[in-house]
């Protein structure tokens, strides 16, 4: 068992931290206010290959695998969650393509996305369901060499950007969930105004309206009527990104608590001298470490897993623990800050809002626990 990061992993971590601090931090407040990641930041992330880290080199990616991906995403989310949310959802869509696409599909959709010229999405959620594929209503009806798609998808990340979208609909003939690759902004595709969300500002979140969208038959991902495993395992891989975002939030909560404990004085001494504060700092430190190793390990498993089912279980476990830990850590960090921490002038406010997001996204915590318990008690 080797817990050391390789020099390459350390350099990728440092690269992401440098970029986050040099380029993203100066516009972090602007991202919070505008709820939009500036184009030059998107271009900068692309130039550093951060959109194609997990994609094999033969499809235009960096072939770095998932551990460096976790390391880099943590550092970006530490400074601003919006760009990290975009990369995470992009990888969710792209990962499904890489894992389940045919060579032709991969050759067609992956390279531009791996370079960040296109931004991928993954659309499951609908106004009527966020956790239960049986309740999907978006329909796909065969018409010659294509399918015609109709329906509404809710809360879809990156759906405003150009690029491939892995979309789940009920295929009429089989009556079963089926995955399709849709090119966003094709005829019949439109999106809502962006949602204003509690946290993760800057991450693009809209509803998608599909009106007689024609998708060629060769864009079916996997088999017709067999979308469920793609959904299940696609989302399992997506959780690596979600975990990294929550981990970056936890790291920020820790650093902010330490900084404030040393800065803020009470009767002439920094509050760090008080045992009550020391215990809080120790608590967050422990939380961060436990999240960290779970998140890194899930990245390692993603590189090495042969068994998707096993991996999905691990992902469900890591997801609920890390998402909950982020909330716990920010709450304690808020306690260290006291009332000042409630003022928008303090960064902990952003971190606190960001931490609220993880538990409710890409499978709520309860769903993760249902998946995990189902496997344990099988």
């Amino acid at each position: 068992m080797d817990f050391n990061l390789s020099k390459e992993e350390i350099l990728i971590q440092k690269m992401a931290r440098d970029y986050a601090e040099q380029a993203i931090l100066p516009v972090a407040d602007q991202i919070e206010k505008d709820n939009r990641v500036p184009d030059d930041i998107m271009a900068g992330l692309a130039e550093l290959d951060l959109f194609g880290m997990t994609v094999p080199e033969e499809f235009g990616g960096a072939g770095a695998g998932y551990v460096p991906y976790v390391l880099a995403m943590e550092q970006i989310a530490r400074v601003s969650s919006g760009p990290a949310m975009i990369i995470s959802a992009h990888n969710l869509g792209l990962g499904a393509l890489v894992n389940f696409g045919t060579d032709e599909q991969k050759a067609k959709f992956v390279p531009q996305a791996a370079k960040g010229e296109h931004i991928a999405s993954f659309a499951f959620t609908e106004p009527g369901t966020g956790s239960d594929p049986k309740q999907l209503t978006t329909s796909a009806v065969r018409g010659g060499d294509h399918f015609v798609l109709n329906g509404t998808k809710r809360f879809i990340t990156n759906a405003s950007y150009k690029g491939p979208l892995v979309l789940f609909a009920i295929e009429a003939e089989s009556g079963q969930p089926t995955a399709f690759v849709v090119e966003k902004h094709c005829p019949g595709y439109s999106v809502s105004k962006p949602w204003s969300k509690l946290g993760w500002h800057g991450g693009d979140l809209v509803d998608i309206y599909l009106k007689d969208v024609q998708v060629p038959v060769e864009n079916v991902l996997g088999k017709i009527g067999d979308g469920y495993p793609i959904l299940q395992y696609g989302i399992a891989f997506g959780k690596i990104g979600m975990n990294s975002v929550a981990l970056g939030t936890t790291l920020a909560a820790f650093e902010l608590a330490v900084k404030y404990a040393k800065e803020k004085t009470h009767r002439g001494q920094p509050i760090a001298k008080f045992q009550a504060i020391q215990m809080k700092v120790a608590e967050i430190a422990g939380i961060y470490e436990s999240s960290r190793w779970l998140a890194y390990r899930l990245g390692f498993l993603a590189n090495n897993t042969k068994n998707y089912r096993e991996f999905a279980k691990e992902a469900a476990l890591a997801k609920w623990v890390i998402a909950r830990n982020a909330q716990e850590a920010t709450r304690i960090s808020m306690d260290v800050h006291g009332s000042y921490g409630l003022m928008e002038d303090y960064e902990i406010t952003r971190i606190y809002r960001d931490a609220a997001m993880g538990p409710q996204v890409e499978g709520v915590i309860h769903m993760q626990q249902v998946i995990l318990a189902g496997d344990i008690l099988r």
Partner: protein
Amino acid sequence: MAGTLIFSENPALVLELATAALEMDSGPVYALVINNGPQAEKLSNHGLAVLSVDEPGMSSFDTAGCAQAVAQTAGQKDLSMVLLSSDRRGKELAGRVAEAMHAGCLTDVKGFSLEGGQLAFTRNSLGGATLATQAIKTPAQVVAVSPRAFAPIAPTATGSIEAVKINVPASAVKLVETRSKAGDTVDLQAAERLVVVGQGVEDQSDLALVEQVAQALKAEIGCSKPVATDKKWYPEERIIGLSGKICKPALALILGVSGQVQFTVGVREAQVIVSVNNDENAFMNKIADYVLVADLKEALPELVRQLG
């Protein structure tokens, strides 16, 4: 130790080096002047023993040639200590002179003491986080002394000029053009009082108020690095700190500087430091004599009013 050779292109710094040399008390002191008759004249009138090189083939901007001139003169006169100014020209020269003389060398030297009979020099290390005390073990020694570390020497009537002949190979460097730096002739290191602008001065329009404060206090204006390099509100000559000027003013009024060590090395030897910062915990405040926790947006106009 046979004696000391001092050299700087900047005559004001030569006078400081002369003080340092006398205080080190290591034999006779000579000042080298290269291709600059008027300067030789001026320094000898001030009381220095000048060694004057007149070698039309060489030029002051060529470090290789200058290093030869310094090393050969020291050799001819059997001077084992060379003191250079630790400005950019002097620092560039120091390593080359030292290598030519097989000498150990220290730059950015701020002072010296006697440790067990040998000279020990002090200089900043680790980005200014520490103060190192170091000694040179070789018989010949090259030391570049920080500007303002020593007071200029008082004039005496004992000056002289002696011509020296040296042998310098043709220069591989040609001067195309010299430009003065954008009309900024301020000498921050000579200023008795400094007002320092940090990123806590948030609007460029407030610089007019800073100007008025500086006028009222008869102070020069310096700034932190990002104010010059990122915001470009002032020329880089005004940067204070590790990559800028190391100053020792009587008063440093610091406006909105966080106090990273790279900055504080530039003011920490001020006699009185005042920090105005809206962050009561700013590191700058911990090394200040007076701390005013205030938003500069409000503090500046009021300061102008009350000082005026």
